[in-house]
């Protein structure tokens, strides 16, 4: 019995070790989040590099080219000379049958032919904007070559300012989409996986305070946010000259608010799911509609007026609208109050609901 006591006492007096912050349960749980994330290379790719690749790809595809040059053709040599005076037309001189084929296969937008009586005939598809534009440009060139004088003098001033291009529209959309996707997937997957492995039940069986478990996800989200917003925004600013007209403090605040609101949504999505399939289905059900209607790639204004109030109430619409207003128009707190309020409501409602129905095992 004395032996037993001796061993028991030895085991008992082995510690206590003084606690550093890394020994704190919240510190340890957050470290686990970081480790699990960086040890999953796919997660890193989707969260950080994919938005950069996407914005690079779309930025190049939709870059503002020196104005569109329209391809047209003619079979009449003098007509070709007259048309070549117009810079925006690329004029080819083709024989009758070649010209016919080029028009039918869409290689040229318009075919101009002079008839023996002096009439110029334009052949084009009037439902095609390129065809109509070519018609106007070609006729203009022909009439001027024929000696027409314009009664009113006109001058052009060209708009190619940063802030009004597609890439400027796109970057805030991608940032918003990234915040939503990363928040919902991170919480959805990590929580469901822990539940599926019965790891959550095991952790709940320890004296760990339960709020720490959820808090560790939020802390990790805040760390990830710096990179997940910083990378695409810096990329846009440095490579495409996307403007940052609003206060950076407001921009950061918006990203934090958005991240919290979507984390709450992720928590709700994961609150009862027991399998990865279930949580994936639910997450897609929640997110795919917002990808489409919330104005990530094109303006949400394109949807009918009747559904606009619904679209405006969605958290992704609110976040993207506010990000665009901040970055492109330099909006202050007052101008994004409605969007911030919408995000706040989503945050509170989802979080309260998630805690109420959360399955801790």
């Amino acid at each position, binding site marked *: 019995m004395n032996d037993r006591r001796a061993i028991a*006492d030895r085991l008992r007096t*082995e*510690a206590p070790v003084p606690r550093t912050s890394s020994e704190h349960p919240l510190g340890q749980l957050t470290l*686990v989040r970081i480790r699990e994330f960086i040890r999953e290379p796919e997660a890193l790719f989707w969260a950080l590099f994919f938005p950069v690749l996407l914005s690079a790809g779309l930025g190049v595809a939709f870059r503002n080219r020196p104005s569109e040059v329209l391809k047209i053709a003619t079979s009449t040599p003098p007509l070709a000379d007259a048309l070549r005076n117009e810079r925006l037309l690329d004029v080819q001189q083709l024989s009758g049958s070649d010209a016919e084929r080029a028009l039918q296969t869409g290689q040229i937008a318009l075919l101009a032919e002079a008839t023996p009586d002096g009439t110029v005939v334009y052949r084009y598809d009037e439902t095609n904007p390129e065809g109509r534009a070519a018609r106007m440009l070609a006729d203009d060139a022909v009439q001027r070559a024929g000696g027409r004088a314009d009664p009113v003098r006109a001058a052009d001033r060209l708009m190619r300012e940063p802030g009004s291009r597609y890439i400027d529209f796109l970057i805030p959309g991608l940032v918003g989409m990234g915040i939503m996707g990363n928040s919902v997937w991170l919480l959805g997957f990590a929580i469901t996986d822990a539940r599926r492995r*019965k790891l959550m039940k095991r952790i709940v069986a320890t004296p760990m305070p339960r709020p720490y478990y959820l808090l560790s996800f939020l802390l990790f989200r805040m760390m990830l946010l710096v990179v997940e917003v910083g990378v695409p925004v810096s990329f846009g600013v440095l490579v495409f000259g996307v403007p940052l007209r609003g206060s950076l403090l407001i921009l950061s605040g918006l990203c934090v608010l958005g991240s919290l609101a979507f984390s709450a949504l992720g928590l709700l999505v994961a609150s009862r799911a027991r399998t990865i399939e279930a949580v994936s289905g639910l997450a897609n059900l929640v997110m795919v509609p917002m990808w489409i209607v919330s104005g990530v790639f094109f303006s949400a204004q394109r949807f009918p007026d009747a559904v606009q109030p619904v679209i405006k109430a969605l958290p992704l619409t609110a976040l993207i609208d506010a990000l665009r207003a901040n970055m492109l128009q330099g909006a202050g707190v007052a101008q994004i109050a409605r969007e911030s309020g919408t995000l706040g409501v989503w945050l509170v409602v989802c979080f309260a609901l998630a805690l109420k129905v959360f399955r801790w095992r």
Partner: protein
Amino acid sequence: MHAPPVAALRVRNLRKSYKDVTAVDGLDLEVRTSECFGLLGPNGAGKTTTIEICEGLTQPDSGEVEVLGLRWSSDAGRLRQRLGIQLQDTQLSEKLTVLETVRLFRSFFHQGPDASTVIGQVQLDEKQHARVGALSGGQKQRLALACALVGDPDLLFLDEPTTGLDPQARRQLWDLIDQFKLAGKSIILTTHYMDEAQRLCERVAIIDHGRVIALGTPRELIASIGVRHLVEFTGHAAGELDVSTVQRIDGVRDVHSENGTVRLQVTELHRAVPALLEELGRQGVALTELRTHSATLEDVFVALTGRHLRDE
């Protein structure tokens, strides 16, 4: 050292039903301090439900549970600090290392040995920087044990600690559990391996259909069925054996014939076996197999229920 004379665990008239199944049906238990107590029973007997109620993870429908003299309703926080828990098939995070996992669990407890000490105790020193995903089944189970020990618990719950392990890994885990018994800790373990209960436990409760059907030391339980040995044989024409003549052999208690295999319960092996061989010779049964073994907890279970522990 504080050693109040309270039982490690006291359970009275515990009941728990799920939709259409009664998992625990009026169960009583008392586990003494510093004892290793086994809950033995087949799958679905209610062992895990019982242990999870005691661990504060499942809410009972009715009944009283007192753990280390404390109750879940009023002392959950204090109680959690003093319990070591290993659940059935928890998969720890595969991307963390052994050391990171144990440090995480250590951080939840106010006191206890530091992580590397516990890793040494479960003999995973060499694996402490290995990812959990790279461990063998036995190593994972020892890691789960380490996570149960980091808080220097007064009471350890082990739910089927060796299920699915190969014999060598099982023996290694038994040796570890022996060490903690030496440290004077109370242990409650569930198992459906009778040899495990016999090897580790001072006392055993045999559970069936959510109720304790027998309680005592393994030795007492085996003695209670009044049978010391079992003899089992098969042979050509064993099926046509006249069982009644075997029944009359001195020292044979019970004869059971099934699919050509005959089982006898025997009190005195040295007298029964020669007489049996003589009788078989007389009846012209050619033996193909003859086995004898001392009665085990498995036989106790069979004697009490007519079923085997591992019948599905």
